[in-house]
């Protein structure tokens, strides 16, 4: 019985233990879903995302899930880049890494490495640590709100919005944002899905970055101002906030 209880945990540890890195690439990060490698691919700075197989899943399910997530990620990245938004006098897409190669055998994806970029998470942390006035973050928040509004107007749900999944291209001051990590993304026009997408970001944002309520408010304001369909989404967000642990849904 004891062995049984420890079973899945041990198996998972074994499964995650050893996969050799792809040649020429170094392991940079190990998440729950995938290992991230960095290095040169076809002569260019690249990031490789190799999915970690979950041995506790039925193999057929594992294969299907893994493939679907990889395919979704590739699709969403292309969808972002080809989305069309008016910015002053021209059209612009949503910045997302270029896909170099998708390997459907190992369900891994090779992407453009945005060299010298930093995550919004690291940027906010450094601004807060340096004692700078958080009002400088308000403009960043506006840009984020605009970006997410555009993404949602394309009916693209990110699925894993956190400040570590949004990058700032160098130089940081330009506030040129790039969305990454579309492994859990999907297409949906439903305000519920968009509201939940924002809720996930809100929870991640406020728990990672203390005292940033005003910043996130600015993000939502910009979102509402940019998205043509924001009304129902914000409404859903308010409703979703009322769900969750230890919260009474009795209005």
């Amino acid at each position, binding site marked *: 019985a004891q062995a049984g209880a420890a079973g899945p945990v041990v198996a998972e540890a074994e499964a995650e233990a050893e996969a050799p890195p*792809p040649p020429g690439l170094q392991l940079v990060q190990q998440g729950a879903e995938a290992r991230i490698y960095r290095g040169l691919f076809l002569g260019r700075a690249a990031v490789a995302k190799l999915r970690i197989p979950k041995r506790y899943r039925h193999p057929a399910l594992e294969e299907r899930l893994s493939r679907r997530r990889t395919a979704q990620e*590739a*699709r969403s990245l292309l969808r972002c*880049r080809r989305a069309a938004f008016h910015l002053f006098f021209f*059209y*612009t*897409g949503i910045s997302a890494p270029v*896909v*170099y190669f998708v390997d459907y055998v190992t369900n891994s994806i090779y992407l453009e490495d945005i060299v010298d970029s930093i995550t919004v998470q690291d940027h906010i942390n450094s601004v807060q640590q340096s004692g700078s006035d958080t009002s400088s973050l308000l403009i960043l928040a506006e840009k984020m709100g605009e970006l997410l509004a555009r993404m949602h107007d394309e009916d693209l749900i990110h699925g894993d919005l956190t400040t570590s999944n949004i990058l700032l291209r160098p130089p940081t001051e330009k506030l040129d944002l790039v969305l990454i990590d579309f492994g859990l993304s999907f297409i949906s026009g439903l305000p519920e899905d968009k509201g939940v997408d924002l809720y996930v970001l809100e929870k991640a944002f406020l728990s990672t970055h203390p005292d940033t309520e005003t910043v996130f408010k600015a993000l939502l304001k910009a979102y509402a101002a940019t998205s043509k369909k924001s009304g129902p989404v914000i409404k859903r967000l308010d409703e979703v906030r009322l769900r969750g642990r230890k919260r009474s849904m009795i209005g």
Partner: protein
Amino acid sequence: MDLRHQLELFPDCSVTLLLFNHVKNAAALRKKAMEGSIEGALINPAMIVDPFQILVAANKAVHLHKIGKMKTRTLYAEIIFSLSPNNNISDAFKKFGISDSDTAVLIVLIVDREKTVNLEDIASQVEGQQVSLDELPQLTDTVKVKKMYKVTPQEEKIGTLLDSIVCRMSTKDVL
């Protein structure tokens, strides 16, 4: 003059690119390519914006070849097919392969460790002048390329033409 790159994921394979201008025997070369009597993928340089585009196609072709999942019959045909943004094989050959009236030819070779390929032998079959890959941009027909890959104005705002092309090539089987 030629450009060589060892594929990171397939270290036994090297991709070699040879570029020729002022070519007079494109028709004969095309015939040889169709017969399989010349080694290499013969590509129309007007459709290529950067050697990286070829490397991406070659990498994918070698990958599919290794797992037995090519859509075409030979590795070199698969490279040409991988360049195409769509899944129509004959269209890929028509647009990316060479035609009788072409005056420039890009030859792509995959050399693996066991084989030896004689570059001079291949170059001697081309009635033209071998030039450096640096001259490729002069031969690119940007308008034709944008049309073929259906590059949108918004994509051009967030990246280079090459970025748009590579994205299209690598995600075409998932769309």
